[in-house]
Each structure stands twice: as C-alpha cells, then as structure tokens.
C-alpha cells in the first residue's frame, strides 16, 4: 500500500495505537506487532513477495549466527559468501535476468549468430533492491567484527521487514536499527510530533510537488521531438524536482512514521540541490545507498589508499554499480558513468572534500554570488544527467539532449507547454518549496521543529490543505523508487 493512500491512512493509526498499547508488555511484543504489520503492509501488494523476504531473513539470520569469531577465516568467508550469493542471486534473478538474456541475444545477433534465449515473465518484487542490501550489511558487519549477531529472530525479522523503510529505503544499517529493536521504546511527545511534521512535509513533497509535475514530465519526455529546446529544458528541470521530491518525500515519510513508533532512521537526503560541487552532492543525495556502496564496495576495492589511478578506477566502478542498482537498463549505467565523469575532476583537484559544512547563513538571506553560481552549475549538470536517468533508452536520451542543445523554437510555451492546464500553480509551489528548504538549510528557520505555538499549528494546517487540494485520488501515482 502506498503512503499516500486511504488504505495506509487507516492502517497507520491502527498500528500506532496497538503498538503503544503493547508498550506495557514489552519490546518483544511490540516487535511481534511490527513484524505482523510489516508483513501485512508488504503482502498488500502481492502475498507471494513475502516468500522472498522470509527467505532473505532466514538465510541471513542463520549466517549471522554461524559467522563466529572463533571460526577459521575460510569458513567465515564461506558463510558470508552464502549470504551475499543468496541475496544477490535473488536480486539478480528477479531484476536482471531478462536484461542479461536480452543483451546476450543482442550480442550474438550483432556478430551474425542469432540465438534464442528464454525470457521470464517475472514481476519485480517491490523493495527487493533495498532489503537485500540491508540484510547483506548485517552479515558483512558481523564478518568484519563490527556487529554482534542477534539471537532474537523476531527483532531481526522486524529489522529486515520494518515497513516504513521496507520498499524504498533508507537502506538502514543493522548497527543503527537493530539495537533500537532490542531496547525498550518510550513514547516521546516531541519525537512523535516531529514524526508527524516529517510525514506532512514528506507528503507535501510527494503530492504537491512530485505528482503535480509528473504529467508534464511524462508528456514532454514522450513527445520531445514536438517541443522547443526551452520546453525540453523545462521538462528536464521539472523531472529533477520530481525525482527529488518523490524520493526524498518517501524517505522523510519513512523517518516520520518511524519516529511515531519511537525509532530513528538515518537521514537519506540532506537538501542536495543546494550543493556547490559534485562531492557535496553525493554526500547529500541518497545517503544510505552511497554510504553503503562506499563501505561495502569502494573500501574493499582499496578505496583511495592505493594511489590515484586505482582510486579513479574504483570511483568508476562504484558509480556504475550505483547506476546499475537502480535498474536493468543501460540508461542507469550511463547515468552512473556520467556522474563518475563529473565527480572525478573534483577528486583529482582534491576539492571533493570541500564544502563539508552546510551553506553559510548570510546577512541578507540570499547565498553569495559565488555560492549561487556553484549551486546553479551543479544543479544544471545534475539535471542533464537526470535526462539519461529518465529516458527509456540511451538513444532516447541522446535525441532529447541533442534537441535541447539545438536551441530551436521559442520559449513562450514555458507556462503551458502541453496544451493542458497551465503550470503556473506548480511553479509557484516549487518556488515556495525551494525557498522554505533553502531557509531551513541556512538555519533561518527550522522546518522540523514543532512547538505548541499558533504559527506551528498554522504551518501544519496549511500543509494539510495544500496536500488535500493537490490530491487527485483517481490518478494516485506510485513512488518512482518503488520500481527499483
């Protein structure tokens, strides 16, 4: 069930109420309830998906217990490889089988020896890319000696299937979430209120921003040959906002729901569109995935310890892997490659570790001219790369970008590019949205501080009104990252 659905609006209060009623019995009972609710949540899409999550949970629970510190290294490695093979095997089968089969056939056909390979009519289980990575982090951390395996199967299963972050992240680490599952949770009014604020702001991002621009993006990308360069640029920019608002909105809602249940999840997005360079961008965008890949792929490959040439090779590998994680299409791989190419120059110059601090709070609110230029430049390059991410194929992306830089047609259609309702309202919401997030980033305001003041209540009331007014129940759009 989607977070922005009536089903979930009925589901959450029931889960919340029973969860805190069970507080007096103990955390184990609460974990049983979370587990049950999570399986209902996940099975709502398709009950067959539950078999996969049972499998992944079972394998990693057993492997976690088997990787004992006193075992010989070779044996511990074998257990670890079992976990990795099982999870990646599951992911590979459901997500990448047809991709590899299709490319295999295409390669043979290209060399004049056409063959026939079977293609499977399998549905991609929602969230498989997220929970397989999450459970692998558990066994890998145990192998590295960073985590003690748990014997509490219920807590472990609840960690794996925790419904707020199950289907679209953040990819939690066992070292963060598992201890929270094992300890007693105490209801905190401030935490719960902040959770509701996160939930509302996440819904605002998803419904008022992402879903509102989605139709325009779809039409512009589907009919790019019919539009002027200015409208194509508009489509690309709108998609940047759509994917950010959609994905970060989900993550924020996940954090909000978790707070309501007394859990703290990791921050997954830290206002990435105010980044001044690519190093900063990748410290702020999809943080759970980038840190996962850094810790479990980049560092084992050698990281930057073995000289710049190898480091550059490793950077390429992790960006390509990150792209490939998103989906079984060459567009994602190319997208990852583009980001690698954009990232590497700052690595070579040593500026990728610049701007570790957030944007400074300036006297006149606006950023400095230099910061403005860097922000716009980074945003523009990210937007160009996102055209490839959004396109159905590499050739589609190439055609789109070529037409964009052909500077054809006039820009007059920017307000109403596709003969539907005017986009003025959407533009207004995006501007207000970015202003508020900018003010929050520069610490002029705190969007997530909930006080018992009229202004705080008014802000929440206005959020609810804007969400309701922007809702189109007929065309309930799923979250973009559900497909990954």
């Amino acid at each position, binding site marked *: 069930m989607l977070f922005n659905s*009536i089903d979930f609006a009925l589901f959450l209060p029931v889960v919340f109420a029973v969860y*805190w009623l069970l507080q007096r019995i103990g955390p184990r009972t609460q974990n049983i309830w979370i587990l049950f609710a999570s399986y209902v949540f996940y099975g709502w899409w398709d009950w067959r998906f539950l078999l996969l999550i049972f499998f992944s949970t079972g394998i990693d629970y057993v492997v976690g217990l088997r990787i004992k510190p006193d075992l010989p290294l070779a044996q511990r490695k074998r257990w670890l490889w079992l976990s990795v093979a099982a999870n990646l095997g599951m992911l590979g089968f459901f997500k990448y089988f047809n991709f590899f089969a299709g490319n295999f056939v295409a390669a043979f056909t290209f060399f004049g020896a056409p063959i026939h390979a079977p293609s499977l009519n399998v549905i991609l289980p929602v969230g498989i890319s997220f929970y397989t990575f999450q459970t692998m982090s558990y066994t890998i951390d145990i192998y590295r000696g960073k985590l003690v395996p748990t014997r509490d199967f219920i807590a472990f299963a609840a960690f794996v299937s925790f419904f707020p972050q199950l289907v679209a992240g953040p990819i939690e680490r066992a070292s963060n979430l598992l201890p929270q599952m094992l300890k007693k949770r105490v*209801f905190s*009014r401030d935490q*719960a*209120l902040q959770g*509701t604020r996160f939930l509302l702001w996440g819904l605002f991002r998803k419904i008022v921003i992402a879903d509102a621009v989605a*139709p325009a993006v779809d039409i512009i990308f589907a009919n790019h040959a019919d539009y002027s360069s200015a409208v194509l640029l508009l489509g690309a920019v709108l998609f940047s906002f759509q994917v950010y608002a959609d994905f970060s909105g989900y993550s924020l809602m996940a954090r909000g729901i978790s707070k309501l249940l007394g859990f703290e999840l990791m921050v997954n997005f830290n206002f990435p569109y105010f980044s001044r360079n690519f190093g900063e961008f990748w410290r702020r965008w999809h943080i759970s995935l980038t840190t996962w890949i850094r810790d479990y792929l980049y560092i084992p490959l050698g990281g930057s310890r073995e000289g710049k040439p190898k480091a550059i090779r490793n950077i390429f590998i992790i960006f390509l892997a990150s792209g490939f994680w998103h989906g079984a299409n060459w567009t994602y791989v190319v997208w990852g490659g583009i980001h690698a190419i954009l990232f590497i120059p700052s690595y070579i110059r040593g500026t990728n570790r610049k701007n570790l601090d957030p944007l400074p709070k300036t006297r006149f609110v606006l950023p400095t001219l230099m910061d403005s230029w860097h922000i716009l430049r980074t945003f523009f390059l990210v937007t160009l790369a996102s055209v490839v991410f959004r396109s159905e194929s590499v050739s589609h992306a190439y055609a789109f970008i070529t037409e964009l830089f052909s500077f054809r047609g006039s820009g007059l259609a920017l307000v109403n590019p596709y003969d*539907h*309702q005017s986009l003025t*309202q959407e533009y207004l919401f995006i501007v207000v949205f970015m202003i508020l997030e900018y003010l929050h980033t520069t610490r002029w305001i705190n969007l997530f501080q*909930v006080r*018992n003041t009229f202004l705080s*209540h*008014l802000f*929440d*009331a*206005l959020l*609810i*009104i804007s969400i*309701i*007014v*922007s*809702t*189109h*129940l*007929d*065309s309930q759009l799923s979250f973009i990252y559900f497909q990954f």
Partner: protein
Amino acid sequence: MQGFFRHIFTTVLLFALLFEGTLRITGIAGHKIPAANIDGNFLLQPGAEGVWIAGAKGEIQAKYSINPQGYNSIRNFEQDLANDFNGKVSIALLGNSYIEGYHNDVEESIGRLLESYTNDSVVVHQYGRMSANIADYALLYQQHIRGKYDYVYVLAMNQTVTQTTPRYMDQGQIKFNTEEQEKCYDRIHLVRYFRYNLKLVVKYKKEWEKRMTRFNNKWKRSSIHSQNPLKKTKTGKKPPKRKIHREAIETFGEETFFLFEKQRMRYSNHPLLKDRCVEIFPVLLPDDFGFDGHWNMNGQKNCARAMKNHLDVLRKAQTTTSPEDSASE
C-alpha cells in the same frame, strides 16, 4: 501521549476552520444538484440552475440547467414534441453521466454541438442520467422515446450494457427520500468538498463493494470445496464474463444505434449490436480531464462528430434508395 493528541486535535481543528473558510470564500466546494421524483423516476429538480464544480482545485466548473422533464438540458422536450420539432430531424440521445454532461456547459452539450454541425437541421434531446444503464434506457425507450424520434442513439459502455437493474427509472420513490435526509450534511462546505470534489464517499463505497464481492466470491468457492472435499476443483477460476442484457437491447427499434468508444466497450462485435454500432473516434485529444475520465469539450466534440458523420451516411443511403423507388413506380 495526551499532549501529543491535544496537539494533533488543535491542528486538525485549525485546519478544519481554515479550510472551511477558504472553501466558502473561493466557492469551489461542489454541491449535489437537487433531485426529484418525476413520474416515479429518480431525476433532477426542474428549474434548478447553477455551476457544477468538481476536482480538488475546482478545476471543472460548468453551468447546468434542469429542464421540466428533469434532465440537464436547455431544451423543453415536451414543447419540442408538441411543436413536432419544427419539421427538423429529431434525435434522442440516451446515456449515463457522459451524456448528462455536467462536466461541460449545458449550452455546449453534445446535442447543441450536433445541432450546430448540422446547421440546425436537427433537434437533439439528451436523456442523460448518471449511473444509468441499459435497463434504464430500455424502460425510458418504452415509456417516452418509441415512435417519437427519427433516430435514437444510445451510448454503450462495458459497465452499462451488462447491467440488468435500472438505476433511476422507476426508482424515484426509493432514492428521493435518501436525498432529502442528506441535505443537512451539505451545509458544511468541508463535507461537500470531500463528497463532491474529491468524491470520497462514492469512490470508497465502490471500492468497498468491489472488495466485498471479491471476498464473497472467494468464500463461496471455498464453501463449495469444503462441501465435497473428495471432488477435484479448479483453483484460481476467473469469474464468468458478463453477458450483455439481451432483453433490454432487443427492446430498441430499428431507428436505434449504439455509440461506443473502443477502449470503453468490448461488445461492439456482439451479434445484437454489430450492425448498429457507431464508433466514436478520438480525433481531438485529450478527450477527458486527466484526473476525471469524463469527456471534456474535445470528448463531446468527438461524440457529436461521430453522430454527424453517421447521420450523413444515413441520409446518403436514403437518397441513394429514393431514385430507385421512383424509377420502379
């Protein structure tokens, strides 16, 4: 916990007051057009006029006007019949909410469009009523249409041609009383907004009925299995494909044709229908409102255009046969 709920309650109360005020100021809360029991049929209050609003932001705002017969039309059907349509070709157009046409101004309804496309050589009476189906059309045809019009067009859709229970014909007494009781809720704009703009009640009633039907079907199948556990039964059996309401369709005379859109009607090749089907081609797009599947002005024009083209074909066929007739004489 109490502090948390107090905070939530205060926020919700502030939201309700703010939103109620906003809706009253902007006037975008929808409303139900008053209903009436006319000759035992659940129709609309004659003389009611106004602007019908739909959509979360009140995106659809269209004028409506209920004629003395209880339909959304600027034409007085009885007067036109009494005047013998002033010698023009008379057309009756039967259908559901698509023909009722709230989503577009009543002055620009399908009938008015067709009249302008044919240089006012036809008069069109639109008998549209939301949720109506073939059982309603058959009763309507028998009681008010047969023998009075040169041509009759019926909008056929998957969900209308298979229904056997009328939704508004002969339902006036049953449904009108419920409408009266609901009026008190409609004074609160917030309630109206959720009911008519977002259509929460209708949507979730239908969803609930669908889920209950699915649940009951599963339960019935499992009951059969438990009665005779030794008998092998097929699992995952699909419910039978719905049959069109044959008796209702056989009611219509030769002057009746069935309008359809390919994506909304899969029975166009049915033996009872195929010789009388008139396809509506989606020439002008988009033909709906996106968030609402009803026809926008483009959709209405596509329908009027299809009817006009069909009338031209009929006229041509008539003029082609006439010279032979005179020759044989």
